[in-house]
């Protein structure tokens, strides 16, 4: 009762304390959400290759920090395998998109416009590429550069007409831009080479058996299921951004502990005389601890709820507005941060609890 009443008696103090905890919770959720969101979204292109098996140059196991070159005529070898239904080439390389003097790293992808395999799977505006000289750009990349459907943009060293804007093709480190396969071969000076084949298994065959069949049946290539290829690609990104983000999450947790600790400490300091009065009246130290812990629990719970709500709001706002920056706040993350907040609250209330336990009750007579 006293814990809650003490907090409610000073509403400004309560609001500031809750905001302090909410900030710490928000910081942790945003950092963790950025980490999960980025690693999830970064493989969006691979994830949308449905059930395909990715065939690539041996030694290449992920998409972002390796270049795969395969002879285009490997396609016939792949189609000769009894497990293979189709094998569609894609040709892609990372490049530098320059528009009005602004440079943005992006990924140029050539695909077979006849089958559409490897092309954009969701359009925000316009239509898919139908002929040479046309491009479908990621809508976020287009938006950042003020590009609309119908505009002319320079891809590598040629001008293209933007015929469509694609959804879900942006991640923190990647924007995908789609052109026809012959255009890509010309721009990327690929000659008769492609980067990957997207192989669909025949009915009755699963991707793993196709992977084995390709590895044993087609010399000079390697193969991965889309899930394995995405996982490998994600791992590369995690090694690139994981450590700094995890460090920032750790710092956020430390900031949270310090914030809660300072908040509870300040709260306790303000109420020290009241605690002294209670001690004088005969309240035992462990009963005072319970008040301190009760106050901490209330602040931590309200702060957690507020921080989580703001993080959820930020997730939606950023997802809608920016597209390339995704904060994925998952139930597991919420649970983990709830535990973290409880741990922060427990740690943060240790010193104030000791302080309260050591109060000289005679303080009540010496105001």
């Amino acid at each position, binding site marked *: *009762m*006293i814990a809650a*009443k*003490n907090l*409610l*008696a*000073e509403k400004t103090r309560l609001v500031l304390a809750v905001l302090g905890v909410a900030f710490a919770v928000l910081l942790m959720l945003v950092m963790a959400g950025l980490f999960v969101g980025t690693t999830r979204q970064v493989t969006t292109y691979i994830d949308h290759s449905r059930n395909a098996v990715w065939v690539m140059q041996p030694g290449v196991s992920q998409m972002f920090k390796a270049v795969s070159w395969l002879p285009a005529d490997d396609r016939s070898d792949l189609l000769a395998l009894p497990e293979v239904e189709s094998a569609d080439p894609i040709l892609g390389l990372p490049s530098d998109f320059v528009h009005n003097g602004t440079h943005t790293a992006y990924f140029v992808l050539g695909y077979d416009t006849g089958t559409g395999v490897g092309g954009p799977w969701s359009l925000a505006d316009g239509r898919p590429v139908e002929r040479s000289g046309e491009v479908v750009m990621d809508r976020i990349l287009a938006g950042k550069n003020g590009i609309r459907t119908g505009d002319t943009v320079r891809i590598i060293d040629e001008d293209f007409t933007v015929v469509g804007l694609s959804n879900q093709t942006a991640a923190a480190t990647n924007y995908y831009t789609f052109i026809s396969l012959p255009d890509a071969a010309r721009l990327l000076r690929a000659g008769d080479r492609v980067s990957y084949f997207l192989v669909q298994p025949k009915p009755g065959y699963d991707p793993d058996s196709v992977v084995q069949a390709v590895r044993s049946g087609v010399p000079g290539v390697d193969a991965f299921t889309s899930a394995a290829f995405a996982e490998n690609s994600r791992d590369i990104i995690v090694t690139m951004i994981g450590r700094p983000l995890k460090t920032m999450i750790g710092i956020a947790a430390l900031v949270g502990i310090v914030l809660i600790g300072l908040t509870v400490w300040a709260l306790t300091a303000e109420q020290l*005389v*009241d605690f002294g*009065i*209670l*001690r*004088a*009246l*005969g*309240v*035992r*130290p462990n*009963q005072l601890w319970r008040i301190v812990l009760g106050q901490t629990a209330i602040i931590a719970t309200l702060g957690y709820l507020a921080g989580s709500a703001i993080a959820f709001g930020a997730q939606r706002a950023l997802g809608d507005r920016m597209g390339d920056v995704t904060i994925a706040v998952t139930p597991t993350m919420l649970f983990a941060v709830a535990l973290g907040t409880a741990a922060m609250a427990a740690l943060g209330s240790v010193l104030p609890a000791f302080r309260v336990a050591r109060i*000289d*009750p*005679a303080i*009540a*007579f010496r*105001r």
Partner: protein
Amino acid sequence: MRCPVCHHDAAPARGVNSPGRFAPARRVDSPGRFAPARGVDSPGRFAPARGVDSPGRFAPARRCNQCRRPILDTTANPVLELSEVTHHYGAGDAAVQALGGISFSVDRGEVILVVGPSGGGKTTALLIMGLLLTPDSGSVRIGGQEVGGLSERDRATLRLLRLGFLFQDYNLLNSLTSAENVAVPLRFAGVRKSAALARANELLDSLGLAHRAGHRPTELSGGEQQRVATARALAMGPDLILADEPTANLDSATGRRVSEQLASAARAHDAAVVIVTHDSRLDGIADRIVHLEDGRILEAAAG
């Protein structure tokens, strides 16, 4: 035995000093006398009684079935007994004697004023009587219980259950209403909320503050705050109320009215009151006046 909080008939305490019970010490020497303790514990030493009771191990095992207040054995007179109590502040050459071996006792229903000049040892005596300060030597008994050997936890329990406090600055909790402030000791003693608030309202009513039960201290006058504090001091049905300059912040009329209410309420509840004060206007309410100067009792006069 009637529960002082909910007035429900409670079963009498079993036995005199069952282990683990909040039982008063039954000393070998006669209680109720204004005399230093000369019992089984070493004379003149601040040491636990080694009698039939086991100090330092008490905890009321039984509670009122109605309100959950701990059930205490009725204590014998005197409710407070100080014997040859000395205390110094500081050490070595810098040591200052605050009390030089004072002895006095207080019986139930008695109102005693402790008066004297500043620095005479009044506050030190009050802190020792309130178990908030451990004297260098001597014996302190509350309700016959030698408190010298009690742990801090047991001292706190004894303060909560057997003592009531009034402070110069009222010391109400500003976040709580009057009724909630009065209920604080009850709630911390484990009394049910409804019973605690009923008791608080009953006490506030008896002190003419029923209409202020829902107000916070900041909304009350000084006199009202001190009356709320009086109700809080009476809430547990204590044996002894210790008051530190309770009228110092009140005008003379209010101070007199508050102290008269304190004295009559305490007598009605069969509680003793020790008031440390400079206020000579309170002489009229006291049964006895103890003059304390330079750490010694100069005289004990009838009020």
